[in-house]
């Protein structure tokens, strides 16, 4: 009886590890998608409506999908509390502290590079910088989506299989 309970527990644990890994893939896709959408809004607000940055951050924090909205809310908090500091600095700080983005270092790079271009140049240059960052994020999104489609089932199955394997070895 103890062996059966142990086997079930081991299998459940490895299965949940597999499921967590699948969820992580999905969260990464959601994160990249929300950021791509946010950059679209950002570009049109800056280039078309000339929206001031505090107002823009408020809008993005309220209207974009999670977790991009958390990132922009963090930017807004920093802009209010770090008055007198360059925007690039608070942008970087918000990026580094928004763990909900769950992005890999190389996926954060386009956003880190975008920071210094925001708020201090004319609309054309900012628009170009946003577009360039968006294109790079879109490429990452595509890659993350195919990774998710390709590996979701494999990772879930691997979790179950690993559990069964460990149980057999232990028994």
């Amino acid at each position, binding site marked *: 009886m103890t062996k059966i309970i142990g086997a079930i527990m081991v299998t459940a644990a490895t299965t949940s590890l597999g499921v967590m890994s699948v969820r992580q893939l999905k969260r990464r896709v959601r994160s990249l998608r929300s950021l791509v959408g946010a950059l679209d809004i950002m570009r049109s607000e*800056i280039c078309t409506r*000339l929206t*001031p940055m*505090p107002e823009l951050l408020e809008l993005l924090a309220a209207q974009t999908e999670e977790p991009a909205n958390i990132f922009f809310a963090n930017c807004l908090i920093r802009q209010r509390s770090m008055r*007198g500091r360059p925007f690039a600095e608070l942008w970087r700080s918000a990026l580094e502290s928004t763990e909900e983005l769950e992005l890999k270092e190389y996926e954060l790079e386009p956003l880190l590079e975008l920071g210094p271009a925001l*708020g*201090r*140049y004319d*609309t054309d240059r900012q628009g170009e910088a946003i577009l360039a960052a968006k294109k790079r994020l879109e490429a990452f999104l595509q890659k993350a989506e195919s990774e998710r489609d390709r590996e979701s089932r494999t990772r879930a199955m691997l979790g179950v299989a690993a559990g069964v394997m460990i149980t057999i070895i232990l028994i």
Partner: protein
Amino acid sequence: MDEEYLISRFYSAAALLPQGLRETFERLSDKEKAFAEEFRLRAGLLPSVLLPGGEKRLGTRTVSPRDLIDTLEIATESSLHSSKESIRNGFVTGLGGHRIGICGTAIMKNGEIEGIRSVSSLSVRIAKEIKDCGREVASKLIESGRFMSAIVISPPGGGKTTLLRDLVRQLSNRGFRVALADERNEIAAVRGGVPQADVGMRTDVLSSCPRDQAVMLLLRTMNPEIIAMDEITAPRDARALESASNCGVGLLATAHALDVSELLGRGLYRELLSQGIFRKAVVISRTDGVRSFSVQDLEGLC
């Protein structure tokens, strides 16, 4: 005037500067902070403060081009793109209503200034609200309960905007419905729809709109008794004033001139005065750093 208030305005303007520069200005004595009128930042030179007695150079660290860009970024809350129109006119209005004049290389497009690149110097004018400085002047501009249209004159930096702000407040609180065309947003310093300066309880503010368009818009929509504006500089401003004047609205404006005779020597103003659009001139003069105001009748001068 309250020294504490003046010092607080100094710090409010200094907050627009990058940290290194800010510290240089903050080393001034309290008396100098209270009397400071402008911060002057020129690339490659020491920063200086404009005091009633003239400019005083500060510190040992020269201003870098990066300092100038950082100042503009801080002052506009990283929203330089939103100030495109005012940059075209050579200034931005920072938080707290402090006006920052910009010099650099003009970008020309179709014969008009499109923007300014390679910023070479900035002048941060410390906005000060001097309540009641216009109390006596306001009384002299009202005759038999009627406001007499007036033009406030002084050379640049003479205190026109400060006096205009208080006149608007005085007239508004005395029962006149005042519409304020605040193109540079330095009179009322509106932020999030709320004026940061006290411009009176019956004042409607239209900010960041070209003066000529603002006058017509206010006339059509706000039913004003008085329209106030800063610095008439272009023929189109004068034409808008003529139209407003024909609608029975009182006008209050400012212009750069030493005195009335200098004003009459310039075509744009001579025409306005000859049409009787302004009935009074408020002349600001300065002796030993102390400002005084005199109200003169303009009728019969042209």
